[in-house]
């Protein structure tokens, strides 16, 4: 696994931010799903197109510097800001906009929301 491809992740209906272009590399290869109930279909699609490794954040933990992109299903308060704060590109499957106590970290170049699998395309 050394051959990673890049993807473009655009905001879906009602979403905000992005588009993000994500290309994993040998050190940052995790497609980190922090959604509960396993790997979210959006994370699955990003992993399939890039060659990155799907990783369930609720089953084990990973250092931030190994995460290529974090996929969350956040309603707008907590997770929405944590990963951008750590400079990890973040994809929310719900159509949220910057809000909550961590809103200051949520910028278009690191966050995109309302994303469905079809909003993830080869770059």
């Amino acid at each position, binding site marked *: 696994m050394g051959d990673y491809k890049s993807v473009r992740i655009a905001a879906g209906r009602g979403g905000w931010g992005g588009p993000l272009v994500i290309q994993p590399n040998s050190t940052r290869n995790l497609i980190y799903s922090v959604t*509960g109930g396993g790997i979210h279909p959006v994370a699955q699609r990003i992993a399939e197109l890039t060659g990155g490794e799907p990783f369930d954040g609720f089953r084990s*933990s990973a250092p931030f510097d190994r995460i290529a992109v974090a996929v969350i299903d956040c*309603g707008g308060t*907590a997770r929405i800001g944590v990963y951008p704060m750590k400079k990890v590109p973040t994809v929310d499957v719900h159509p949220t906009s910057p809000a909550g*106590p961590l809103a200051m970290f949520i910028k278009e170049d690191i966050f995109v929301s309302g994303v469905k699998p079809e909003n993830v395309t080869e770059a």
Partner: protein
Amino acid sequence: MEVTRYATEVTAVGALVPDFVEQQILVFFSDAAPEELHDFSVLHHPTVAKSGLTTGDEVVIDGTTMRVLSVGDLAEQNLLALGHLNLKANGASQAPLPGDVCVEARALPIPRPGSKLWITGTLTPP
């Protein structure tokens, strides 16, 4: 007929929780949550996780009882799948964000390890 929808015991309280409480917010996550969420979260280990919640329910933290005024569309999924609850003491009768559970505007208690939280209600959640 009042039912206990959810009951849990606090296992750890993140260092940033008091800052969130100052903003009238308490964030809960089950203790299976990734480490990066621990700083601002109240971590807990549920013993009852029967259903989501609805307007009119009571959220009890130790000796403090709060009435639920509004519930966002994602609150049930968050609670049952992740033990995740965003409790906001904002007095909102319409939840501003889909993950919100809003109670009356009041000072929120700061839980401690060993604190008990439970949610009771009489109506069937929608």
